[in-house]
């Protein structure tokens, strides 16, 4: 997972997640508040520049993690250019819309800017920090516990999954689509059974460490949280004001 790697190794790893979250939120607001597609595009560029130059994320990596979402954006937004109609013979035709390309550009610019804000946050902030931030923001315990356990266990499952996939492939389990579906069925059933046994073991392990209620953890600490928050608030305000006024 490329995003995950960047989140732990980027230059801004030790900056308060609250500050990074505030800046990303400002970016999202600016994307939606942008007066014109051009200002939204400027917001997107500012966010991308911060990610590349500030946090030191590589250009190629940013492009790779953005690619699937941009694919969706292209397909989804192109449909705003055309309108379906039934012609005299009853078959479906597409016609260009009289509004032209304005709605298309508006959507692409807004969505692109919002995507840039999301990518800034996730490429600079590990999920453990984001969960701790959500804990500070008083998200319900049940959701936080779900997230903590899910984040830890998804790597355990992912490892088990790849081991099994390799073992199955080595025995030609994926030679044909039919075999592949069968192999996947066995693999998934195997993992599904593990859900119960692993949950049981984690529960016992929690009891052994004297747990008899919600799962509690200490918060990570960050140096200069106040300063970081002030900078993020300033930068975020400039982004929002710029997007609405320009």
């Amino acid at each position, binding site marked *: 997972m490329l995003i995950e790697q960047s989140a732990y190794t980027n230059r801004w790893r030790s900056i308060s997640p609250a500050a990074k979250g505030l800046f990303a939120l400002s970016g999202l607001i600016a994307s939606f508040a942008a007066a014109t597609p051009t200002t939204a595009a400027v917001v997107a560029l500012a966010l991308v520049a911060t990610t590349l130059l500030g946090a030191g994320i590589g250009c190629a990596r940013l492009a790779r993690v953005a690619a699937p979402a941009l694919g969706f954006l292209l397909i989804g937004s192109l449909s705003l250019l055309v309108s379906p109609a039934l012609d005299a013979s009853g078959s479906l035709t597409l016609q260009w819309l009289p509004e032209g390309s304005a709605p298309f550009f508006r959507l692409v610019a807004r969505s692109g800017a919002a995507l840039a804000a999301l990518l800034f946050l996730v490429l600079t902030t590990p999920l453990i920090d984001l969960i701790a931030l959500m804990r500070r923001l008083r998200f319900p315990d049940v959701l936080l516990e779900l997230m903590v356990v899910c984040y*830890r266990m998804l*790597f355990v499952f992912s490892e088990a999954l790849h081991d099994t996939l390799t073992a199955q492939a080595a025995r030609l389990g994926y030679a044909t689509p039919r075999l592949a579906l069968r192999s996947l069925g066995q693999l998934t059933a195997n993992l599904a059974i593990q859900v119960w046994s692993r949950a049981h073991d*984690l529960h016992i392990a929690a009891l*052994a460490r004297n747990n008899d209620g919600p799962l*509690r953890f*200490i918060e*990570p600490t960050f140096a200069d949280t106040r300063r970081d928050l002030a900078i993020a608030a300033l930068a975020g305000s400039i982004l929002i004001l710029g997007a609405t006024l320009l």
Partner: protein
Amino acid sequence: MSFNDVLLQFEQVAYRYPDGSIGLDGCSLGIRAGSRNALLGANGAGKTTLFQHANGLLQPQGGVVRYAGTPVDYSRAGLRRLRTDIGLVFQNPDRQLFSASVREDVSFGPLNLGLDTDTVRQRVDAALDAVGLAHAADKAVHNLSFGQKKRVCIAGVLAMEPKLLILDEPMAGLDNAMREELLSALNGLHAKGITLLLATHDIDFAYRWADDIHLMARGRCTASFASAAMPAREDDLKAAGLPSPQVIALHRALVARGLLAATPLPRSQRELVALLETGALS
């Protein structure tokens, strides 16, 4: 409490699992305060079941478990006290670490003890330091090596400052370097006065490291003896399906050829080599 005080005592403890299989069958043994203990037995001999009784996760159906002389109190408060003093580290890190953040996971136990945040932070730092992972506090568990994950598990229990630390096959799956690191961490804990009990399949390691040896087979605690008495207890080892430490046979052969004295008894290859080099001839 002196060295010879028994910290944890099993008396005729019996447990049968709901599916009918035997977990413990009249098991008796004692763990002396401040001692290093190795529990040996084949897979399925009941080692994990014994550990779960020690920590109050399982309650005996027959017999009694005593901690510091008093029978374990299985009320909520009693279990809380027991689990504060007896820490249990399971075999597989992927089945006991549930936060991806090293610092968070280690903080879990001490927070359950109801300690304040500052104390918890100190204990987390001290525990990570004790297992040599101070630098990894802000890392993600999934980015650590298997050996490091095992040490995080130990730190998570150490941070609760137990009097007795129980480890289920701590060496399993570790390469040599990882074993050495773990061993030095364990010896550091022992030096601080923590009583250690660990399950292992490695008889050579048990012989050179432990003060006391406990053997299990088919749910029975078949023998307990001082590690130094091992050469005289080879029948007990055999009965539990265990080989003798290699150094015993080697030493015996050297004594028979007149190359070494019958005493002192070396408990490791290294000690044996040292004896040969100093020329302790008969």
